[in-house]
């Protein structure tokens, strides 16, 4: 059970988030303020927001649990799986999106290819986000039920109420700025846990020696690179091809929730710097979430469920007060994921579907209103659909896996679209559709194609390769747009224009 002071901190956290979010209402005067924060946000806030949106409550517990079971190789997801992609995004892709004054990535695809590509990409994201919202609500509420004993419905309604309140009123400014607070709390609580944990296990050298001496199954725990035939889900082949080459880049460059934050930057320098600053913070994340999992091997050996490692460490290592702060960080993780989904889906719907198809040329106030209403409807839908997840135990993994499938083809057309001026609209359209189709087939018949149980890293790689090859071949046989139309959208054309 939590101490009174811990409960007080959690309740104060909820109340504070609502007050803070409502305060940001004063900065929302038009749709650009609501969706892009009026393009006035600084790099440090955006960088923090990018990092914290990437960590949900599930990741907190899941990464510690995987570190408990498989060791440091899980850190690859935040190190090699994020940092190079964030640097690539900072120097190559983000400047394009920012200079183009875009709201969404499908908007870029629409300008580079055609309206069909924009609509398919946008609808895919909207569907994914809308389904993910309910799944996320349920998965996190179940987790909090286990950790804190709160009824599932209480967690859902409480978090939905708080997140919905500040996202509805404050738009992306509230989303980014509440993320800043969430990251600071997460880091202070997390580093305290790691510091006290090291004190408890006798330091790094003692921890390594003790874990190695626990048996043969722990000999690979400190090997960052795992062999291709490893029993863990992180073989080096999957990490390199699936994660580093495709999923990480697709996530950091092609994911609306991430890119939209960078578009809120006050200028191009801030947009680039936000990703670089985010990358530097990202390198610290494994320290916060992975190390407690490793320490728990010594302090709580023999756990059948590795996901209990982090909650046990928090309860046994941290004093009252900081326990409340860390559980607030759990909520923070969930809230930052939900607020990102809400705001990004509202942006995608308003800009890519409502504005071009339903009501063209309306006033800015009207689109602002649509964005707010969409946020509200999504929230209600998320709460209502969340119990469906309980009937399908594998739905959380399925929805997350689906993301890795369509991100590959989407990234392939983004990559070719920016770097090869001869990529045609029909190439992009067929690459996207066939790439997603191949991912679905590979997943459906995964037993025939792959030897490991959960081959999502390999599927994302092959769907990317398919999308890339199809786009390339179809582009060779169809007519590209004239250079004039592609200035500002294709890399070498823009370089030529700025350096005549």
């Amino acid at each position, binding site marked *: 059970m939590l101490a009174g002071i811990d409960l007080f901190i959690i309740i104060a*956290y909820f109340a*504070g988030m609502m007050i803070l979010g409502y305060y940001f209402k004063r900065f929302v005067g038009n749709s650009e303020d609501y969706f892009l924060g009026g393009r006035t946000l600084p790099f440090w806030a955006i960088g923090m927001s990018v990092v914290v949106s990437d960590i949900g409550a599930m990741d907190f517990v899941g990464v510690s649990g995987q570190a408990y079971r498989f060791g440091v190789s899980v850190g690859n997801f935040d190190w090699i799986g994020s940092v190079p992609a964030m640097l690539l995004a900072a120097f190559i892709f983000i400047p394009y999106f920012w200079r183009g004054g875009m709201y969404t990535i499908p908007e870029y695809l629409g300008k580079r290819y055609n309206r069909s590509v924009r609509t398919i990409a946008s609808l895919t994201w909207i569907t994914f986000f809308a389904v993910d919202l309910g799944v996320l609500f349920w998965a996190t509420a179940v987790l909090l039920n286990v950790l804190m004993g709160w009824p599932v419905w209480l967690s859902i309604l409480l978090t939905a109420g708080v997140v919905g309140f500040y996202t509805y009123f404050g738009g992306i400014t509230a989303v980014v700025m509440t993320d*800043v*607070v969430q990251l600071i709390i997460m880091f202070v609580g997390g580093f*305290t846990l790691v510091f*006290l944990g090291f004190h408890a296990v006798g330091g790094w050298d003692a921890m390594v020696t003790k874990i190695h001496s626990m048996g043969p199954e722990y000999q690979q725990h400190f090997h960052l690179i795992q062999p291709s035939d490893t029993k863990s889900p992180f073989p080096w082949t999957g990490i390199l091809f699936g994660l580093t080459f495709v999923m990480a880049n697709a996530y950091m460059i092609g994911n609306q929730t991430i890119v939209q934050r960078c578009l809120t930057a006050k200028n191009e320098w801030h947009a680039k710097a936000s990703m670089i600053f985010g990358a530097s913070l990202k390198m610290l994340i494994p320290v916060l979430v992975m190390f407690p999992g490793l320490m728990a091997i010594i302090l709580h050996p023999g756990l059948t469920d590795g996901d209990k490692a982090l909650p046990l460490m928090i309860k046994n290592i941290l*004093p009252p*007060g900081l326990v409340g702060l860390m559980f607030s960080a759990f909520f923070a993780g969930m809230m930052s994921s939900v607020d990102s989904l809400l705001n990004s889906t509202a942006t995608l719907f308003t800009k890519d579907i409502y504005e071009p198809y339903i009501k063209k040329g309306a006033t800015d106030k009207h689109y602002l209103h649509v964005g707010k209403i969409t946020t509200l409807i999504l929230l209600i839908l998320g709460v209502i659909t969340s119990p469906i997840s309980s009937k399908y135990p594998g739905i959380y993994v399925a929805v997350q896996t689906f993301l890795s499938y369509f991100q590959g083809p989407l990234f392939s057309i983004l990559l070719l679209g920016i770097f090869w001026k001869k990529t045609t609209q029909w190439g992009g359209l067929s690459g996207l559709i066939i790439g997603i189709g191949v991912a679905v087939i590979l997943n459906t018949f995964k037993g025939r194609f792959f030897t490991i149980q959960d081959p999502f890293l390999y599927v994302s790689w092959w769907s990317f390769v398919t999308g890339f090859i199809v786009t390339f071949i179809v582009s060779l046989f169809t007519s590209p747009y004239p250079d004039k139309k592609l200035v500002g959208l294709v890399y070498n054309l823009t370089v030529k224009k700025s350096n005549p």
Partner: protein
Amino acid sequence: MEPTDIEKQKRQKAMQINNALGLFILFFGIVVIIAVPFSDNYYDKMTNLVAGVILSGIGGGTIWYAKRVIKSLNIKNTDPKDHES
């Protein structure tokens, strides 16, 4: 070069946001410091104290910086809603 009124207003908005953030983080720092007497032993007390002071420092520092910049901008009315009209 003297900043324009629009630049001043943008800077003022950024500082008002920082001020609100600082206030929130400072509040949490104080709450963690309040938790010090509720801790069982010396280590727990010191842990809460250090974490609370760090949070309060970040919050207090942010407020101090934001207030200093707002003062240097020399804008009489600090409510952005009023500037829109």
